C-alpha cells in the first residue's frame, strides 16, 4: 500500500491553458503555471469558485483538451503523442456533471458496455466486465432498465459503472453531484469512497460541496487559474477567512467551530465532521 502510494498516477508540469479568442471575444487564460502530482491510490479533492479553472483542469487530465504550454503526464504517457490518446482515456476515466448527457445507450447494461466495446474488448469479456461493474456500483437489479426511468443518483452510478467497465486506474469526477438531490449525492459519494478504499482506485473529485471531501487525502484549491492552496483537509479548512475571500465555503462544522472561536470559546480549529464537533464540545 505505502509502496503503491509513491507511484505517480498524474503529473502536471508548468501547464497553461488558454481558450483561444476570436474577433468577438478575447482569449481567456483558464489555467496558468499549474504544477501538481497525484499518486496512485490517492483521493484528491479539487475545489474552486466558478471560473477558477477546475473543469478545464479535469479535461486536461484525460486528454479531452491539450495544454497550451507545459506537459500533462498520465501514468507515464503524454497525450501530445496522439497514439497514446486512447490508452490515456482508458486509464483515466471521467464522470461528468449531467447524468443525462453522458449515457449513450437506451438500456443500462448496453450503456455500461459502450466503453469496452469502443476498446475492442472481446464480447464474452465485455459481458463479465459489465456484470462486475454493475455489481460494484450496486445496480445489477437495474441492468435491463431504461436510463430515463432512473433517479439522478442511479444514473450517475451507471455512468460510474460505464467507466469502471473500461478498467481504468484513475477516475476523474467533474462535479458529479452538482445536479443531484441529497440522497442521490449520498449514493454517489458512497460509491466513490468505496472505489477508493476497496479497489484502491485513484480518485480526483471536483466539487462545490466541501462536506464531500473532508475525508480526502489531499485538497487542491484553485482560484483564477492558479493553485492557491494545497494540503490535507484539516490544513485547508483551517483557513476559513482565506477560503471565504475566494468565494468558497468550509464544511458546516468547521464554520461553526470558527464562529465559536471568534466568540471566545476554546475549541480546536481542525474540526471537520459532526462527530468531531460532538467530541470537542463534550470535553
Amino acid at each position: 500500500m505505502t509502496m503503491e502510494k509513491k507511484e505517480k498516477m498524474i503529473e502536471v508540469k508548468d501547464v497553461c491553458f488558454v481558450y483561444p479568442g476570436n474577433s468577438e471575444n478575447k482569449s481567456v487564460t483558464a489555467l496558468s503555471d499549474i504544477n501538481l502530482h497525484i499518486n496512485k491510490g490517492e483521493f484528491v479533492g479539487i475545489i474552486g469558485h466558478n471560473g477558477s479553472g477546475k473543469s478545464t483542469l479535469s479535461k486536461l487530465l484525460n486528454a479531452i483538451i491539450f495544454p497550451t504550454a507545459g506537459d500533462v503526464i498520465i501514468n507515464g504517457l503524454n497525450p501530445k503523442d496522439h497514439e497514446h490518446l486512447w490508452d490515456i482515456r482508458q486509464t483515466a476515466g471521467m464522470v461528468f456533471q449531467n447524468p443525462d448527457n453522458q449515457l449513450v445507450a437506451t438500456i443500462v447494461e448496453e450503456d455500461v458496455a459502450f466503453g469496452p466495446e469502443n476498446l475492442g474488448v472481446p464480447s464474452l469479456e465485455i459481458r463479465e466486465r459489465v456484470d462486475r461493474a454493475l455489481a460494484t456500483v450496486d445496480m445489477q437489479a437495474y441492468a435491463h432498465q431504461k436510463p430515463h426511468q432512473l433517479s439522478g443518483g442511479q444514473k450517475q452510478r451507471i455512468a460510474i459503472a460505464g467507466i469502471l467497465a473500461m478498467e481504468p486506474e484513475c477516475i476523474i469526477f467533474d462535479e458529479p453531484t452538482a445536479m443531484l438531490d441529497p440522497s442521490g449525492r449520498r449514493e454517489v459519494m458512497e460509491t466513490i469512497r468505496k472505489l477508493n478504499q476497496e479497489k484502491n482506485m485513484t480518485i480526483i473529485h471536483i466539487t462545490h460541496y466541501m462536506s464531500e471531501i473532508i475525508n480526502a487525502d489531499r485538497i487542491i484549491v484553485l482560484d483564477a487559474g492558479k493553485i492557491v492552496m494545497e494540503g490535507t483537509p484539516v490544513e485547508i479548512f483551517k483557513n476559513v477567512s482565506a477560503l471565504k475571500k475566494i468565494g468558497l465555503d468550509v464544511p458546516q462544522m468547521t464554520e461553526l467551530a470558527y464562529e465559536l472561536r471568534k466568540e471566545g470559546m476554546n475549541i480546536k480549529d481542525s474540526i471537520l465532521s459532526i462527530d468531531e464537533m460532538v467530541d470537542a464540545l463534550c470535553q
Partner: protein
Amino acid sequence: MLKDVTIGQYYPTGSVIHKMDPRTKILFTTAFIVMLFCINNLWGYLATLLILVAVTLVSKIPVSYIIRGIKGLVLIILLTVTLNLFMTPGTVIASLGPLNITMEGLKVATYMALRLIFLIVGTSIMTLTTSPIDLTDGMEWCMRFIPFVRRYAHELSMMMSIALRFIPTLMEETERIMKAQKARGANFETGSIIARAKNLIPILIPLFISAFRRADELATAMEARCYRGGENRTRMKQLVFENRDRVSFVLMLMMIIGLILTTMIKIPLLFPV
C-alpha cells in the same frame, strides 16, 4: 399528448416475440408494409387483423397500449378517410349537398384507413418488442446489403440509437419548458392555429438550445469513453441466428405467403372485386 406517442418506444415483457432476431423482425415488418399496399380485398385485411391480434397476444403487450399509439394519429386517419370518401369518382351511393359518396370512394377510404391503422400497429409492435439496441443492430446489419449506405452503416445506426435514447429525455424537457412558459402566462390551448403555432416558439427555442448543449456534452462524454467510430469496435451482444430464429423465420414467411394468397381470393366481401 406527448405520452400517447408509442412509436419508437420499447415495452419489455420477455415474450418470444421480444426474443426474436431483430433482423427477422425488420425484414418481415418491411414485407408486411409492402403487403399492406398490395392487398386488394377485405379477406386480406381480415387475415392481417388476425395476424396482428395473434402477434400482439403472443407479445404480451397490453392492447390498450397499442391502441394508444393509434389515438395519436387519429387526425391523419380521419383526414385521409374524408378526402378519399368524397374525392373518388365512381357510382354515387349517397349525396351530401354538393358532396358525393361513391362506392369506389367508400372502398378506397376503408382500405386507406385499414392500411394506416395496420401500418401503425405493425411497426409499433416491432419497436415495442425490439430493444432500440437490437433494432439499430439489426438495421446496421440490413444496411450492409444496400450499396452506398453500407459505408455509413455504423454511423447511421449510432445516430438512430442516440436519437431513440434522447426521445424521452427531450419529451420530459419539452413538458418542463411548457410548464415554465405557462407559469409566465403563455397560452398554448386557445387561439387560432397560427396563434398557437406562434406560441410554440418560446418552447422550441429553449428546447433547441438545450438539445445542442446536450449534444456537445454527449460528444465529449463519448470521446472520453474512447469512442472513435465503428472501426475495431466489438459488441457485447452479437446477433446469432439460432434454431429458434429459423422457426420464427419460417412462421413469418408463412404469414406473408398467406397474405399474398389472399390477393387471389375472388369471392367478394362487402365490396365487389
